[in-house]
């Protein structure tokens, strides 16, 4: 059991990370905008990027960015840290 001040400390830290988290979550919207809307503006072959037509390389770029964004969200999401600490999924 934690002492009263320590528990309060954990509480505030958690609520702060949750506030940060809800802001960072919005990053997940970017790949939807990039792919679903952005593609309309890059529907060309030239210039080739990494040897690929522009429209294709644009989509590739968003796949990579999407993975990076989700990795950031995963690392910062308190839900993942919590379940690890609880050891509920020792694998």
């Amino acid at each position: 059991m934690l002492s009263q001040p320590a528990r309060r400390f954990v509480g505030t830290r958690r609520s702060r990370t949750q506030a940060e988290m809800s802001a960072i979550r919005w990053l997940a919207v970017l790949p939807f905008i990039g792919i679903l809307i952005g593609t309309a503006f890059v529907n060309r072959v030239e210039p080739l990027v990494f040897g690929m037509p522009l429209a294709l390389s644009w989509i590739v770029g968003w796949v990579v960015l999407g993975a990076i964004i989700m990795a950031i969200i995963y690392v910062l999401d308190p839900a993942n840290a919590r379940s690890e600490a609880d050891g509920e999924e020792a694998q």
Partner: protein
Amino acid sequence: MMSALVIIFLAMAVALALGLRARSGKTMTLEQWTVAGRGFGGPLVFLLTAGEIYTTFTFLGGSGYAYGKGAPAYYILAYGVLAYILSYWLLPPIWRYAKRHRLVSQPHFFARKYDSPALGLLVAAVGVIALVPYLVLQLKGLGIIVSVASYGSISADMAIWIGAAVVTAYVMVSGVRGSAWNAVVKDVLILAIVIFLGVYLPFHYYGGYSEMFRAIDAAKPGFLAFRAEGQSVLWFQSTVALTALGFFMWPHAFGAVFTARSERTFRRNAFMLPMYQLILLFVFFCGFAAILKVPGLTGGDIDLSLFRLSIQSFDPWFVGVIGAAGVLTALVPGSMILTAAATLLANDVARGLSPTIAEDSVASIARGLVPIIALVAVWFTLQGGQTIVALLLMGYSFVTQLFPALVCSLMRNNPVTKAGAFAGIAVGVAAVAIVSLTHSTFRSLLPFLPAEMNDVNVGFAALALNVIATAAVSAATRPAATIAAEHV
């Protein structure tokens, strides 16, 4: 010339043996047979999920679409990442709810959430309808591989029968564990082969990617960008939206969610699996490389392009290795799909109609249904005609109709009533069926719509009708007092 076939049949035999071995020493209840007792750890779920995604659809269909259609194939790369982003928030609550209520199937989930066995039956029916074209495309792929690798000595029809027999046999003996072990073998093999082909073919024939794409652009101007009409940007947008929302609505994908040991698996997958999607690029490169080297394939034959180019480029033994990987990409998902369809019919339709059936008999009904479903799929496959991608898009058009009711059921205060969910799904599925069966477009049925509407994916337009019907019927059937969140 026979060495290619020998290697391919050897791969089938090994796959079957792995399936048999996975079964030994275990007595199987229905729950074990379908979700393997929820015992899979992270790495195996990773491979199982990835194994489902890398199917004949990507290997032959993806390369074929790049070969035959050009830019529209890009959609195949785009929707996965969006689906995985959604899965970060979508799958954990599904998994938690299913685990708490010991659910083994998608219709159970809907029936429990909406407290409506009738809705469960409808969802089961939609699942089976959507799985048929998905199974058909696996069999079509098997037929292509075996008949092309036999250099014509085995007909495509005969090859489809052989493939269907192998899938049926190992699903019946081993259930999902068999496909998990084969998924491990398959993923390693397909990864190595696709990357090799995707690098070798463009460099061997064109001297590099830029050179290849410039040559294609010069020979077929406009082929590598979306068209002004038809498969336009609007088609791309609506198709990506449809397939991203439908990604986890497949009964077997939903079932694979239940096999995870913890909900964190899904959050991890959400950032690990999108990168895996990039191997699709190499498949595209194979299809693009074939455009100027094996020209002239049209209609349903565009799916042959990767294999035709391989035969032109390599010794028969290596064609056999490529074919073996191709066979596994059809067998692994084929077995998952067959399992899912049989389970849906036995556990959800049969038991839904007559709840007194004992669990033992449900398992044997499921097993007995496997060859029957395989036969139905063989029949549809032999009808032929459609490309692999068109078949999958048809399945998506059906299965995505489940999305609105599912996502609303996860809300704390579900705004959708059981009648609303039922009406929405029924309207969406009926719209897709009418448009597909009459080969019409929405604009020919509703001429006041603007011309651009023709480019919108049929399934996506049906989804819009679905949402309208869901909202209207829910509003009409909503009780005066707000329904409390009894299903959190």
